[in-house]
């Protein structure tokens, strides 16, 4: 059995309420375990202290690998492995290699980033979802505390004071 966490969570009806509640939680130094929303809410990352995603750096690296694979691959094939003259052009005809080099750059970057995204998020085909509430993907905005970090009483009064419509507990 994998490690489980006891959550206590509150559901808000609006992203404005959610963000105000997070501000209060920050002021009161309550450690938020996670926040769940039905759509990307802008302005949430700085409040939660989330660092910028590094996915784009990974994408750049994957793209670079694609560029090198394509260009060096074609270079090796047409100058070393099996040189052929096409229409009197040089073996190493760089302009003709550009389209495929570009396509493979894009292909490697896209596949690499998408695969990395699913891996770092712990997602993928067949992964069983760990959702606190079914309405989070509909119209509820959720703040979740870990009961071992924030005691139930504090969490309850926090949720009541910040206008959460519902407070629940769940172990995942």
């Amino acid at each position, binding site marked *: 059995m994998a490690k489980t966490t006891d959550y206590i969570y509150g559901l808000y009806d609006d992203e*404005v309420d959610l963000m105000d509640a997070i501000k209060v939680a920050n002021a009161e130094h309550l450690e938020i375990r996670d926040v769940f929303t039905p759509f990307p809410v802008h302005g949430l990352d700085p409040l939660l202290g989330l660092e910028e995603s590094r996915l784009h750096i990974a994408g750049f690296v994957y793209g670079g690998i694609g560029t090198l694979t394509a260009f060096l691959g074609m270079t090796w094939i047409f100058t070393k492995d099996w040189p052929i003259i096409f229409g009197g052009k040089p073996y190493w005809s760089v302009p003709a290699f550009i389209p495929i080099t570009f396509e*493979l750059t894009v*292909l490697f970057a896209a596949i690499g980033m998408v695969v990395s995204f699913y891996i770092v998020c712990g*997602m993928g*085909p067949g992964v*069983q979802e760990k959702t606190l509430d079914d309405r989070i993907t509909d119209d509820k905005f959720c703040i979740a505390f870990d009961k071992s970090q924030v005691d139930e009483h504090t969490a309850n009064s926090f949720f009541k004071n910040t206008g959460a419509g519902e407070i629940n507990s769940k172990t995942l």
Partner: protein
Amino acid sequence: MSSPVSAIRPPLITGNKSYHDITEDLVVGTERTPSATWVIGFIIAVSLLGFGVFCIIWTIWHGIGTWNLNRTIGWGWDITNFVWWVGIGHAGTLISAILLLFRQKWRTGVNRAAEAMTIFAVMCAGLFPLIHMGRIWMAMFIFPYVNTRGPLWPNFNSPLLWDVFAISTYFTVSLLFWYTGLVPDFATVRDRAKGFRRKIYSFLSFGWTGSAKHWQRWESLSLILAGIATPLVLSVHTIVSFDFATSVIPGWHTTIFPPYFVAGAIFSGFAMVQTLMIITRKIMKLEDYITIEHIESMNKVIVATGMIVGVAYLTELFISWYSGYVYEQFAFFNRALGPYYWSYFGMMFCNVISPLFFFSKKLRRNIAFTFFMSILINIGMWFERFVIIATTLARDYLPSSWSFYVPTWVEIGIYLGTFGLFFTCYLIFVRVAPVVAIAEIKSILKSSGDQYAGGKTPPKREKIAPKVKAVASTGELITDDLKKIEGIGPKVEQALNAAGISTFSQLAEAKVDALQSILDNAEGNFRGNSPESWAAQAAIADKGDWDALKKLQDDLDGGRY
């Protein structure tokens, strides 16, 4: 939320929707039993697909001789259809990638269906070069893999090979982009489903939870994919045009081809999106999400790209005359006045003249007319490819090689079969997935919903420093001792009182910016004071929870975090 609400932009979501309404409206298409219209459409599509598969098997079994291609006309309906379908496949990525970069909000209503259309259109397109090879069982020869023939590699200098890479990359990237966008919406469907259906959507949604960090990565991923898909979409049709432009055939080897093909692709792609979306919104009752504004925006793209295409046709014509090169001149003379003159004039009418009607705002916003135009443009763009390919090839350098070409029933059958494939896929898609991107629609609700947009005052809270003073029923001014807040001294309290803030509750409601501007405008030097924690402190003080306030102030440094 502080998302900008434009007073000028018309609303993109009508019907006074709440977040829950959006979920209901957009998921219901996957939940109800298929309508009779859907079933009939599906039967027709599958029948066409079946006939197409039969014709493909017939081709493979008997050979390419079942087509009417000959020594002079080596490319006929097959490549015409290939280019036509690839062109249609350009709108989806354009809508989802380029319009994402340009932050066009109307994208959200149509991007999901347009991306699906892209993927299905590229599938139809890819079919034609494959079966055109003749020996389809050797199709893997086009990929550079280590083989026992040397290894013998494909020719990396050939535009036809570039095409293989461009189209397979385009298909893969579009599919990844589309699916990544679908994952949160599959999760929405999953969380409403029960039993076996829930299992299926649980599998499809990859374990999505909606965590803030996941959304952040998801947005980052979408943005970068959009960034790389934008040059990709331009490169694909550029490379398709290289199939012609790098040849030695008069009428083909022109430098105008890449931009002209790309504009034509977007033109035809948007026309196909219009055809599909007008039907989809009607049948699935999505008028609140795909509004007349969406249709008008797409019509504007159509008229712009249509004019680019028109200019390209006329430039081509002028340059062939101006070049003084007889073969080039003859190629264009033959297109307009040769045996296939009707396809040339059909193309000119459908692609150059008819889009100009969209300069009229009234016609741009007329749904029936838009639908009619979208069909006309699809026909026109098919003619364009036929003119470029078959008409040009029909008149070779030697008059003894001149030829004429009409397709056989097999070629027509394969073309019909691709319609079957396209609509079968599309009809399955509208049953399985939300046709409009649910999460993205929700994210623009507060800026483009009709209860918010168009200069209306948002019905919900807007927290700013209160303008009115807090007055008790006796008429006396209520005051709290604001000096209890760390960072507020007597001078600051005076300034706040002067600005109308005299109680903890007012201070708790006030925004940091508003407080900062009070300080900036007050007499005296308050540069050492930072209001960032005041609202939070005041919120606690307002509740009278002095212990919590004390605890918070112990951590604060002069009112700063």
